[in-house]
């Protein structure tokens, strides 16, 4: 459906996208995961025809997406990172202004506005000025504006930044509902838990390059270990830190140590035997399943929020 091939974009001496290739299929909830500045928004801007690539191509259903392409803009909705609304206007006025750009008939536009407002649960507030809305309501309206033309693909560029957990959940549910209706969703985030919860296919982007892509299972399979071992920081474990470092690489966090997989200790049992040997109490050891965070760490050598 959407195919990106060898896409490169430079801003002066900075390479924002470096020879990126991706394929996104119809109906997918595709996550683009990476830290701030990785190139997620730049890639989104190319998909929507907002930026012109230095090299490479994007095709949508085998048609080349050109810079400023009006046709592609009718098929793709875009939820920007910022709340891109006219604050002094009402929700309805905002929807009408943006919706009118799609050249829908009056009736169709009116129906679509009501549908969008209903989806984001703002129908009863449609005549209120946006500036009177809470942050979460603005985010929901931001989403509503993006689906007025009934898009085939919806690009969501970190649409939950600065949103309270309740509104975030509401937005997740709305997006999942849209995805169930057949809309392909491309979702950028640097929150691992969002990507894990929502996306059935993911790409990890770092420094303008795709470092891995596939389903969540595919990505987790790149790890040798499926579990993460963490040790709670106490006076006791701090005194054992040097000994832990003798057998594995250790990441130090505020309240925990994280044991990094080491080839010498392929089996958990070997690790636990060593912990027992150095006198580490078992109640200070936490074992959890591997996550995208571990995948990112494994692939890039650093944490996503570093």
């Amino acid at each position, binding site marked *: 459906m959407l195919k990106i091939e060898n896409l490169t974009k430079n801003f002066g001496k900075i390479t924002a996208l470096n020879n990126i290739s991706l394929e996104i299929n119809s109906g997918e909830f595709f996550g683009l995961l990476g830290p701030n500045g990785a190139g997620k928004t730049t890639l989104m801007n190319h998909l929507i025809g907002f930026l012109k690539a230095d090299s490479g191509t994007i095709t949508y259903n085998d048609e080349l997406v050109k810079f400023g392409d009006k046709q592609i803009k009718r098929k793709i909705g*875009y939820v920007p*990172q*910022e709340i891109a*609304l006219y604050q002094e206007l009402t929700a309805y006025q905002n929807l009408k202004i943006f919706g009118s750009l799609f*050249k829908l008939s009056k009736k169709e536009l009116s129906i679509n506005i009501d549908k969008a407002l209903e989806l984001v649960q703002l129908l009863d507030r449609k005549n209120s000025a946006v500036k009177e809305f809470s942050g979460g309501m603005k985010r929901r309206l931001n989403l509503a504006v993006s689906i007025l033309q009934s898009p085939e693909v919806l690009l969501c560029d970190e649409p939950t930044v600065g949103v309270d957990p309740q509104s975030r959940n509401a937005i997740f549910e709305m997006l999942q509902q849209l995805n169930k209706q057949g809309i392909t969703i491309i979702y950028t985030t640097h929150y691992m838990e969002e990507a894990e919860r929502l996306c059935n296919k993911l790409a990890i982007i770092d420094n303008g390059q795709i470092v891995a892509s596939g389903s969540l299972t595919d990505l987790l399979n790149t790890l040798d270990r499926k579990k993460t071992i963490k040790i709670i920081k106490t006076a006791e474990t701090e005194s054992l830190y040097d000994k832990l470092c003798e057998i594995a690489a250790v990441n130090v966090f505020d309240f925990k140590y994280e044991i990094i997989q080491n080839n010498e200790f392929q089996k958990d049992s070997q690790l636990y035997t060593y912990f027992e040997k150095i006198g580490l109490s078992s109640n200070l050891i936490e074992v959890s399943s591997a996550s995208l965070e571990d995948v990112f760490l494994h692939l890039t050598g650093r944490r996503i929020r570093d």
Partner: protein
Amino acid sequence: MFKKDLIRFMNDKTAMMLTFIVPIVLIIIFGNIFGGNNTSRGKAHVIFVNKSNSEIAKLIEAKLDSSSNIQLIKKYRVEGTDSILSFTEDKAMEYVRTGKHAAAVVFPSDFLLDTSATMNIKFYYDPRNEIESSIIQGGIQQTIFSQLPEIFPALLARQANNFLGETKANGFRNDMANMISSYFNIPKDSILKFASTKITSGLLKQTSSDSTKNSFIENLINFDSEQLVGKDLKNPQVTRIVGGWAMMFLLFTLTGIATSLFEEKQEGTLRRLLCMPVTRTEILLSKYLFSLSTGIIQLMVLFVFSWAIFDVDIFTNFTNLLIVIIISASAAVSFGMIITSHATSLSQANGVATLLILVMSAVGGAWFPTFLFPDWLQVVAKFTLTYWSVEAFQQIMWRQAELSAITLNLLILIAVTVIFNLYAINRFNKGKIF
């Protein structure tokens, strides 16, 4: 805390510009206009026709030629040819009527007859710039009084003769000289000479401060003034200034709208628009059309207000006024677009726009008539939008001129509009602005 405010201020280039650069630039302009810093004000240009055969008239003409206040224009180029002819009285009047010059001075054939006690001067003027007319009249009087004081005893003697009769007048002067000579033991000849000089000095003083119709001096120099333009205007003062001030506020309003693209960029709405099925040109054109409409409405409101409150005549030449309004508004919008296309932020755009608008208004004649400027500043004025627009408004409203009289003004404003807008659209389309 002080340091914090200082650092923030130093980092705010717009605040720095508005605090220091704008006032400095305006002080330079005002200084030049009102003669500060020893800079010379430009001469008032006046058409001059000498129809008199009098030697005195020729002498005065020579003195006026070297005047520091007045520049006599004696010849004109015949339109469409290279031939240069001397002004006739009719041609001079035509030039004043059409606004090519503010005034014409004619020394008629009866400028100063052998027995006349008065110098007759015809003065044709366009009171659009009253100050300019006053400067010309005052300059002529001053030149005559200061450069040719010997004329006055003769004129005074003639007046005394006319009033008392030659015999009585001579007797009066002799009696007075004899009396003073006998009481103060002073030679009679020097008393007569001194008395004449003193009267002349008094007259000069009187001239500079008193311009009442019945003053004695006006009996010596008779300005036969004829207003050629704007006789029927009900409120000439407001008619004169309304165009300039309207243009200045138009520039502020429309530049504000154009630079609102930066606000839309900051709010993210511009990017959202750019992600919708509209082209960059369409976005810019819609902004342009909105600005233009606002500008036209703003100007119309200002002119209707000046009509309703100050009785300024806007209806006699309404169609032409409307054309000037539309073209001026177009040019003002394009000015906003060019600022927007080069600024990197809203604050920078606002700072640069404020500086340029104030400077253009001051230099372009919105605040003061441009003839008050030094010659070099009058040349600079022609590089401002304000100059061409204000001149067009004055032609239309003051002398009810036809469009042909302001063709050059309109062509320049249209050219600026087209060039600025094409340039801005080109930059916007290439993504160089946003």
